[in-house]
């Protein structure tokens, strides 16, 4: 029988990661993500895994990539300032196609900001923080249970698509404590592996699904991995056709699998005339506001993207077909609200509820926008 335990979001994230097969963690202390490092330090050696506290944030992600290249599922976690520092190597993992989970427990910024008040200010950084065109997957939990289940999903997506996945948590969820049922079994996906690794096999040999199989270092393939644009053998190239084809393949391997990657949650959307768009920790206040509005007779629904990147264009467009007004609530100056505008166009009323002062968005603030006569 599944057991119910009281757990903090950060702790649930580690437990989910271990259930998914994480056996290596490299990190650096930073609030509000530090418990992820602390719990990993306690738990990993007990399951035969390894933990290392590196000298800085950059080293942490580099170390985690190194372990993944050697065939071990790896994770690193941080918060805003550290997430900024990790960006270069995040791009390296995208290009080199190294499975990896990077947790960002968002806190108020910019810079050192307001440690460690809640924020959702890293949404765009998650997508565009590292330089150059690249695909990214980002997932946002809004409960402690989801910290567990979606950590599993982050690893599965990272392994399936050979790409870094960002677990975009926030301080509200990271430090929240809730009773959760720990699933007895979770579905675990492992990276596509090479049957018979040998040096003549092209390391990035083409496949129908655009995701090359990956041989861990040390098993006989003897191949090259680089952050330079490379050909199928894994060696650098200056051939513009090969370079263009590589970046296109990286983009397409995620775009082509949109339906598998994108997940949303819709509540009371069947007859909704007003909808609240929210994600992560903000969804908790939004959910309360929507229930209150319903009790008051307002046909109000809630749309919550669980997958933040790629953005849920298709689901959002469909869900908002009959909606007149969308209240977008996010803990920032307005980041995903512009994505919502892009998708739904100009014929809907968009109300924005944002916060940049480190206080939480309350149900009343969202309710006021739901009830506002436009």
């Amino acid at each position, binding site marked *: 029988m599944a057991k119910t335990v009281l757990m903090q979001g950060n702790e649930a994230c580690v437990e989910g990661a271990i259930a998914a097969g994480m056996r290596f963690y490299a990190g650096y202390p930073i609030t509000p993500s530090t418990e992820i490092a602390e719990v990993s330090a306690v738990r990993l050696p007990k399951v035969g*895994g390894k933990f290392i506290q590196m000298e800085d944030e950059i080293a942490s992600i580099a170390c985690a990539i190194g372990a993944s290249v050697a065939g071990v599922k790896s994770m690193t976690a941080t918060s805003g300032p550290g997430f900024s520092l990790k960006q270069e190597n995040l791009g390296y993992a995208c290009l080199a196609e190294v499975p990896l989970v990077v947790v960002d427990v968002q806190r108020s910024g910019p810079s050192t900001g307001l440690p460690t008040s809640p924020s959702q200010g890293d949404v765009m950084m998650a997508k565009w923080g590292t330089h150059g065109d690249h695909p990214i997957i980002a997932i946002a939990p809004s409960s402690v249970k989801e910290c567990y289940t979606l950590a599993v999903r982050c690893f599965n997506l990272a392994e399936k698509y050979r790409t870094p996945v960002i677990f975009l948590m926030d301080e509200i969820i990271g430090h929240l404590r809730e009773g959760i049922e720990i699933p007895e079994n979770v579905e675990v996906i492992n990276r596509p592996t090479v049957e018979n690794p040998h040096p003549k096999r092209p390391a990035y040999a083409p496949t129908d699904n655009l995701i090359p199989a990956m041989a861990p*270092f040390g*098993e006989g393939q*003897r191949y090259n991995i680089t952050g330079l644009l490379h050909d199928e053998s894994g060696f650098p190239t200056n051939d513009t056709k090969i370079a263009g084809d590589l970046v296109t393949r990286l983009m397409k391997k995620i775009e082509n699998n949109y339906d598998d990657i994108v997940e949303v949650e819709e509540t009371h959307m069947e007859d909704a005339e007003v909808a609240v768009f929210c994600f992560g920790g903000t969804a908790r206040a939004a959910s309360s506001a929507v229930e209150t509005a319903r009790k008051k007779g307002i046909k109000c629904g809630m749309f919550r993207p669980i997958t933040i990147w790629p953005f849920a264009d298709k689901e959002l467009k469909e869900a908002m077909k009959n909606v007149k007004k969308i209240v977008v609530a996010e803990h920032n100056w307005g980041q995903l609200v512009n994505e919502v505008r892009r998708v739904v166009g100009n014929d809907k009323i968009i109300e924005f509820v944002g916060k940049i002062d480190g206080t939480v968005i309350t149900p009343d603030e969202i309710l006021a926008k739901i009830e506002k006569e436009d």
Partner: protein
Amino acid sequence: MVDMTNVSKNTMNTADIIYKYMRPEHLPHIWCPGCGNGIILRAIAQAMENAKIDRNKTVLVSGIGCSSRAAGYIDCNSLHTTHGRAIAFATGIKMAHPELEVIVITGDGDSSAIGGNHLIHAARRNIGLTVVVMNNNIYGMTGGQYSPTTPHLEYGTTAPYGNIDQPFDIAELAMGAGATFAARGAVYHSALLAKTIEKGIRHKGFSIIDVASLCPTYYGRKNKKGSAVDMMRYQKDNTVMVEKAKTMTEEELNGKIVIGVLRDKEAPEYSEEYAKLVEKVKGGNK
């Protein structure tokens, strides 16, 4: 004079080195004529041969700069990473699979400027990496800017009036941080260099070999050091074995490159210590 009696007999001929250890389809290398890095590359391959390490179980990790291309030329697992971070990536590989032989090839800027933090912390942990520094006293790939090892008052494109910085001695820096094996080599003494790198590979724990390379294209030209041959001759005339150096005064050692093993001591290796920790707590209560 450097005693060569015991080093030359363990040297393969160049063709054998190339066909056994290199990836000939990726040669010739990108380095300029007269660059010392090719000699260091050969010495690394020779050291691998001498140490009898399994190429399937060997990982070469590099960062960014002239030095970084070396990793791809040798036929083993190679990871060409981001600027300065090779040692941090290598730490992850070694921790994940301690049975792998992990060799980092880096440069003076890569290892002691942007990557200085990783260098000192890997040395402090005594993790089993072998770090070979292709030290050419300049940023070559970007066209001749001064590096942390450009000597005081010498020139670079970003030190047009002479470098007011004081240079790092990378081997001393690593020893200060706790490196259990530290050595210095010079490309003029290539056979000795291979032997020294071999010792570094065989050493259990963190080892560093700081190698005086040559950059006639930028460092040499900016500082009027003459041709590659002149720079080689300078190395020949100014290298002193560590044993000999002990008998010399500070004044006599001024401007000399002291080569050989500077430190070789035993201490617990990091990934082995972690394995012991895992054994101790594995399967314990949740």
